[in-house]
């Protein structure tokens, strides 16, 4: 989530595409855990791994 420069309002919301948690732009703690994967920003490596595993599982079930 990104605040305006004056901090009075929110400019944009960013959420982890896997777990959906809101990611705060000004949180050092959040930033350390973030992972980029296939042009998306995830909150953690766990969410990247879970996302990949889910896709594999669904592809296997569909196949």
């Amino acid at each position: 989530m990104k605040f305006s420069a004056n901090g009075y309002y929110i400019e944009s919301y960013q959420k982890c595409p896997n777990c959906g948690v809101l990611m705060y732009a000004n949180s050092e703690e959040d930033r350390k855990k973030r992972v980029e994967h296939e042009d998306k920003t995830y909150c953690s490596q766990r969410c990247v791994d879970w996302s990949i595993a889910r896709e594999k599982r669904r592809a296997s079930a569909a196949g």
Partner: protein
Amino acid sequence: MDFVTMNILDSAMVSICREMGITLMKTSYSTIFNEALDFTCGLADMNGDMIAVADFCPAQIGGMPLLVQSCLKEIPISDIHEGDIILHNDPYRGGLHTPEHTFFKPIFVEGEIMGFAVAIGHIAEVGGMAPGGFCGEATEIFQEGVRIPPVKIVKRGEDNVEVWKLLLANVRTPRVNYGDLKALIAAVDLGEKQMQGIFAKYGKAKVKETVADLLLYSEKRMRAELEMIPDGIYSFDDYVESDGVESDKNHLIHVDVHKNGGSIVMDYHGTSPQAIGPINATLGVATSAAYNAVLHMTDPTIPRNSGCFRPIEVMAEPGSLLNVDFPAPSVGGNTETHPRIVGTILGAMSKALPDRVMAAEGGTHCNFVFGGVDADTKEYFACYDLEAVGWGGRSFADGNSAVDSINGNCRITPVEVYETRFPWLIESLALDTDSGGAGKHRGGLGYSKQMLCVNDVITCSQMTDRHLLAPWGLEGGKEGGCGATLVMKDGEDTWKTMREAYGKASTSRFNNVAIRRGDRVLLRMPGGGGYGDPAERDPDAVLSDLKDGYISKEAAKKYYGYKEA
């Protein structure tokens, strides 16, 4: 672990939460607090983890940690001072929906923050498009009332007057809202004072250490419960009917429950995209519903705090029905979609835990909201009318009749109070025969309330569910009865739905219908689904139901093989 001190401290803190609730109940102005008890009081540590709560609303209990922690991400601990009280209701920042207002007050001991006293309450009138806070046809958040980012409503013990003025200028009932907000503040004031007493008695170090042990204990107990469930992936689908804007379109809730050892993950990916109308749920709601479902399936003696939530994870795709993106509306998510999420999880777990789940319950709070000008006092009134439903049959017992939906734990406002406070005459309030789904164990009954308008005009809105999609049964049990909202205009003699009478897109979600003097409204609440094959029901139970009027002779013959002597 010092189990003795831990149990004493846990009991003391739960008692404090109960006292906070009693204070709120007795000093509030609105029936939603002093009759329906739609609030939760708890205690949190300085990280925002919930350390104690009493038997309040599961929706708010599960939502509390994320609510407080979201605020702490915006207001650093260093900026929080003794005597401050922070207020927040923003659905997109850890909130549940606009009516749910969270207050939290820091507990300072010798100049150090040791935790927070928290009170969450459903404010009945929040501005926006519809009096009573539930705009059934909302298409964006701005129609759903005043959205409050984390702000200090009290600063170092003094009212932050500019915030008060801004809030009260944007609601229809400022006098009542002021009273209710003050009641919530009184609750956290009491919580702060009582906890300071606890710290004075035991010392900061001992309390801190014992609370950490308490959370760890709860976590271990929950993990041990989860270990007993067979590992696997359990899936289920359920649907939410309509969104108030696009009629005749159902919205899918899908869950894959991943149970692995002492952990459980609710993966909601595969759920429908977010709706145009206000049935969307926030991540706070999706998380709270997951906690609610697990608490219902596990040992009820496990102390309720963030420790017992640690083994539970939630995955809700952004922009889906269960993790709404700005600026889509979400007022119905916390009351209507939350119980459907819980039902979906219970449905998924029915194979693994047949003795710890139930068939679908009615899954709605009715949310019949209204407002108008009182003919005698000329003051604007507004009300959020909360009703109850039948619960689902279980493997060992019938469902309970007329109980608030699974995320509420609230009470119905007594008829006498309702008639005193609002210009309605309640002509009847009775359980509905045959509304409980047939089964070896029958679903609980819903009921109907018929009301006559005795004011010149009352503006009514509603955000309810289960008019079209009946509560499902389990293991051969039959569906429960659907709900309905009907109107009979003065001088007419037929009941009509809101769609028939006013051209609304949905019968269960609508805004701002003018009900005039002499018009009647009928609210029918859904029953619960049945569990098990009706042919296996105890014949004595069938006879008892017949005698009490819970089932008709026709239903007894059709489902239970009843033969008249």
